[in-house]
């Protein structure tokens, strides 16, 4: 039995549930919009791993019976409002999530994804170090609180973009005259600048040891927000060079991510540069545009039928 932890109102979680049903794989949904309300949990740790149950409105699931977990945690906006002091409510929700996360860390089955693996996404430059170690090229990057260094970096690279350092979502923008005029604000703290990488965006989804690459055609700097700048987006399945594909799999494995969304750019000279790895990819956008069977591969992984899934079981059982 597969356990899905997410919000049914979230399109990605909804697609995962629909695909599991379509594949005939049995699952239970722990709806995080409501959790822990309406659920009964009893998780007992002795010398071995966890044992016990999760019970929903009309079902009970033994932890031993779980073959795979898909988890997509929600922010406060995805939760049903609860009565009581907002601060205390938030603290209790945090406590409930912490317990669930600890359980997922310790379940001896494939978990997409364990929390620890995704933490590197909270620091893009830190993640860049790990990606480079996995064999992926990363863009020339400057993190600085020194305006002169930012100007010199732009002088060296010509076109430069800036984006957030942390996991806070930001729109990638070119560094232009308006931003240059505000560089003095860097004294508040460092910002991240990158040499603009020309070429075509490629989004890679690794699912266990399977790879789905999607080429994105657009004139926008940040294709996720192309519509805001009046640009169109077109997507096509793509094939990666074997070395790049292997490096993507290595990066996902190094980060302990059974499922990852990897942002690449294919440069005009055929080289590939990696921007970041998303530990909780909203893959629905790519699957709908291309028909690539990402959710089906994910369903197979969660069902324990793929090689990576079996490897994960052995890893966790050590």
């Amino acid at each position, binding site marked *: 039995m597969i356990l899905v932890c997410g919000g049914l109102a979230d399109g990605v979680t909804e697609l995962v549930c629909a695909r599991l049903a379509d594949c005939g794989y049995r699952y239970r949904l722990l709806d995080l919009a409501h959790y822990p309300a309406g659920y009964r*949990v009893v998780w007992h740790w002795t010398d071995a791993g966890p044992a016990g149950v999760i019970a929903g409105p009309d079902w009970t699931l033994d932890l031993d019976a779980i073959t795979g977990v898909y988890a997509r945690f929600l922010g406060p906006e995805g939760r049903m409002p609860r009565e009581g002091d907002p601060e205390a409510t938030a603290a209790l929700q945090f406590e409930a999530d912490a317990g669930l996360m600890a359980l997922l860390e310790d379940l001896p089955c494939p978990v997409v994804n364990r929390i620890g693996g995704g933490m590197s996404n909270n620091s893009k430059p830190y993640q860049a170090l790990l990606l480079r170690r996995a064999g992926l090229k990363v863009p020339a*990057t400057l993190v600085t609180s020194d305006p002169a260094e930012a100007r010199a970096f732009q002088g060296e690279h010509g076109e430069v973009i800036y984006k957030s350092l942390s996991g806070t979502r930001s729109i990638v923008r070119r560094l232009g005259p308006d931003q240059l005029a505000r560089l003095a604000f860097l004294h508040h703290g460092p910002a991240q600048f990158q040499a603009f990488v020309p070429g075509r965006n490629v989004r890679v989804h690794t699912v266990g040891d399977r790879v789905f690459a999607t080429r994105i055609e657009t004139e926008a700097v940040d294709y996720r927000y192309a519509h805001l700048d009046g640009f169109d987006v077109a997507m096509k399945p793509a094939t990666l060079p074997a070395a790049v594909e292997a490096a993507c799999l290595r990066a996902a494995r190094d980060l302990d991510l059974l499922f990852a969304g990897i942002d690449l750019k294919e440069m005009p000279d055929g080289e590939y540069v990696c921007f970041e790895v998303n530990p909780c990819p909203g893959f629905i956008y790519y699957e709908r545009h291309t028909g690539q069977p990402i959710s089906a591969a994910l369903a197979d992984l969660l069902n324990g039928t793929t090689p990576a899934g079996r490897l994960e079981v052995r890893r966790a059982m050590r």
Partner: protein
Amino acid sequence: MHLLLGHSWDSCCAGVLARLEARGLPARIVPAPLTAPARLVWRLDAAGLASRLNWDDQEAELAGVLVRGTGWLDPAGWDPTDHAYMQAEILAATLAWLAGLPCPVINRPSAALWYRGRASLLTWRTLLRSHGLPVPEQLVTNDPGEARNFGHRLAALGVAGAVYTPLTGETGYLVATDAGWQGLAALQARAPVCLSEPHGAPLPACIIGGQIVWDCDPPPEARALEPRLCRLAADAGLDFLEVVVAPLRRGLAVVRVDAMPMLEHYAPPAQNRILDSLTALLAPATVSYAAPEAVP
């Protein structure tokens, strides 16, 4: 220059500072190394990684860093939303900076360690188990009946009550009376609680670069755990780790793990040994330090 990332009121920072200064080594305690007036330059490109930190218009040539904080940004004068964003940005920059420094960094943080802070024992269980280290029984439940059963079962084994410790906190509370169980049930109506079997007198130990400093002379069963405790620290990638062992009904077990050891948990002789070992690890008399893997 040795940088002690933390606060002067942290006895660990203060103790290491005093020892470094006694050896004539320049050192500085800095709570927020990447905020003004500091200027950071961190570059990653085809030539590799290079970073530079300037203080007072002078480059800080770092010989070692002791990490006892994460670079807190004073919220004074900030709009709360802007402060939250800037704090996240500075945390992210500080992690990358520490990860790539070509000098000893204790503890050089991983993202999981950096962002999870002081993880509960539950979070450490997988690793503890993989090293064959005994741990107490724990129960996470929002079912008051199951919580009571856990207490009853322990009582039948001669153990009074159960300890409730929030997973996001550090203080444990013994639940042993009817009023206590009723209070716990009220809490369970809102969120699952984590209960552990109570333990006897705790015995803390610091693992510092593969050496163990116990608070006091440990019993033979504790000594027997030493190789496994050292492997635990090494596997976690930590040079400085606190592990607390305590007697349970089935023998000695690890009841707490903390990647941010607190000197106050130790008597003065052990404190001195910890500070001496830490200083020696941070500023070895003979430098034979290998730069981290990420740095070419």
